[in-house]
């Protein structure tokens, strides 16, 4: 395996054994970041001094016979809404440039370092996470490593692109309506949007408190499992973060697969699917023995409610700056925020009450099945600047409809592993493995099974990557 295509577990194994050096891995990642970023535009800042300082510490611990942690010397990147001590958290905005530098790392950034990982940089995103394409007017679009004229997805597009381009093996992102799952799909990498509240959002810029999740991107399913284990744990900085303690997932990945039932989501979740999306779901369904289709009731209304909650809460968070600096917002978010600020209370409360109804109905479906399958995106990555796309015969606004399949699922906080499906299309396409709350171990086992079967695989230089 080439050094740049090693996953995090392989890198940490080399470093912990003393066969590899954290400094060498960090330097290699930094060189790639600096060489590729003018083309890719995945990073908003590269934290070279910090990365080298952390890598030297890891190597010193190994030299002294001490254990630097399960992610020893693993280079990683974080979406630029996680606080990184000493730099200003931009959240893709111009306005937040005026904020002071972060006094300390966000919770997950700190936990990555405590596990031995070395931070390479912060990554580009849609302004305040309000978008699906990372076409940011302040910092430019992030380009897709598999086709530079295409978007990387959003809003965690930079975090997806820098993993897909083999700059780092893992990164962190956030997902309110699809912002981990969409870049995973478009960039051909694995992504985990955990159960709502499973991972702490402490020390990250919020977008919509009711719906915000955070999670990892990775080149392998075992890395997703390890990151979930390393990043889990209660956190008083995030009131939504669970206090439940979970068993480690990584040791469970190879457990027997018998008796697990998977079904394909039909109806709404196929209506706008391109041929690529249909092929991807069919391939995964066959591998998991999913024969039957099931439907969630009133899914379109669930998406509607998620959309309206997002608009209302997001606008409320930014109301002070909407009053004083409206023209400093990205034009792609500004008018939506302004309109969201005017949402009548009756609409917001109805959306939240409908959320409870939809959660109950979805839980009934999981009495009969364990895993639901759906395309993560109806289409493959559109081109940068492309306004409309063909959604199975309907010409729709591309940016606004990329999240059609992701929004109803995050609306009720269900965990999702997005797997990149190998060799079925010219550009990557991902499939969502959706489970009941806290079923991450099962979903990761399923994803690991697909990876071992060769059905799911990170797209690499041997496929279509162009940088």
């Amino acid at each position, binding site marked *: 395996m080439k050094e740049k295509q090693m996953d995090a577990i392989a890198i940490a194994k080399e470093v912990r054994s003393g066969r590899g050096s954290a400094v060498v891995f960090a330097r290699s990642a930094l060189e790639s970041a600096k060489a590729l970023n003018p083309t890719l535009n995945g990073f908003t800042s590269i934290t070279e001094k910090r990365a080298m300082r952390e890598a030297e510490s890891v190597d010193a611990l190994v030299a002294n016979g001490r254990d630097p942690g399960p992610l020893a010397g693993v280079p990683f990147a974080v979406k630029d809404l996680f606080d990184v001590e000493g730099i200003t958290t931009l959240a893709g905005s111009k306005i937040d440039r005026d904020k002071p530098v972060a006094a300390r790392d966000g919770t997950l950034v700190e936990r990555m370092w405590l596990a031995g990982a070395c931070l390479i940089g912060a990554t580009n995103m849609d302004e305040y996470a309000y978008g699906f394409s990372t076409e940011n007017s302040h910092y430019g679009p992030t380009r897709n490593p598999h086709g530079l004229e295409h978007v990387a997805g959003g809003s965690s597009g930079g975090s997806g692109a820098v993993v897909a381009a083999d700059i780092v093996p893992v990164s962190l992102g956030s997902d309110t309506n699809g912002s981990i799952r969409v870049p995973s799909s478009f960039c051909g990498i694995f992504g985990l949007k955990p159960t709502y509240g499973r991972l702490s959002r402490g020390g990250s810029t919020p977008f919509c408190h009711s719906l915000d999740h955070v999670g990892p991107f990775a080149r392998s399913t075992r890395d997703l499992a390890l990151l979930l284990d390393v990043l889990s744990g209660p956190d008083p900085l995030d009131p939504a973060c669970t206090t439940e303690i979970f068993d480690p997932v990584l040791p469970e990945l190879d457990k027997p697969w018998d008796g697990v039932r998977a079904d394909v989501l039909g109806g709404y979740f196929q209506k706008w699917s391109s041929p690529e999306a249909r092929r991807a779901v069919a391939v995964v369904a066959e591998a998991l023995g999913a024969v039957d289709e099931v439907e969630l009731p009133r899914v379109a209304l669930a998406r509607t409610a998620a959309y309206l909650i997002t608009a209302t809460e997001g606008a409320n968070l930014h109301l002070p700056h909407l009053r004083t600096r409206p023209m400093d917002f990205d034009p792609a978010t500004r008018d939506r925020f302004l309109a969201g600020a005017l949402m009548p209370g009756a609409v917001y409360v109805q959306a939240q009450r409908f959320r409870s109804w939809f959660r109950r109905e979805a839980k009934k479906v999981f009495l009969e099945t364990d895993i639901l399958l759906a395309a993560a995106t109806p289409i493959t990555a559109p081109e940068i600047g492309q306004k409309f796309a063909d959604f199975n015969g309907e010409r729709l606004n591309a940016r606004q409809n990329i999240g059609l399949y992701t929004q109803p699922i995050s609306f009720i*906080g269900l965990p999702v592993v997005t797997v990149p499906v190998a060799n079925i299309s010219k550009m990557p396409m991902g499939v969502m493995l959706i489970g009941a709350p806290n079923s991450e171990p099962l979903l990761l086992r399923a994803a690991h099974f697909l990876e071992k079967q060769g059905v799911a695989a990170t797209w690499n230089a041997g496929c279509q990557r162009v940088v």
Partner: protein
Amino acid sequence: MSEMELRGFMKAASAVIGLEIPEECEAGVLEHLAKNFAMARELLAFPLEEDEEQAAFFVP
């Protein structure tokens, strides 16, 4: 809602919360208001039992 009604709502509601809509943003805001309210009408038409509470603190 007609465009005039929508514009009237925009002016009144923004004044209530002390938000001035920049003139160059009005057309875009009206477009999003129309979309939001079309969605809202569908949502408000959905019958919910009175004991269907919103999750005060959402736990899935």
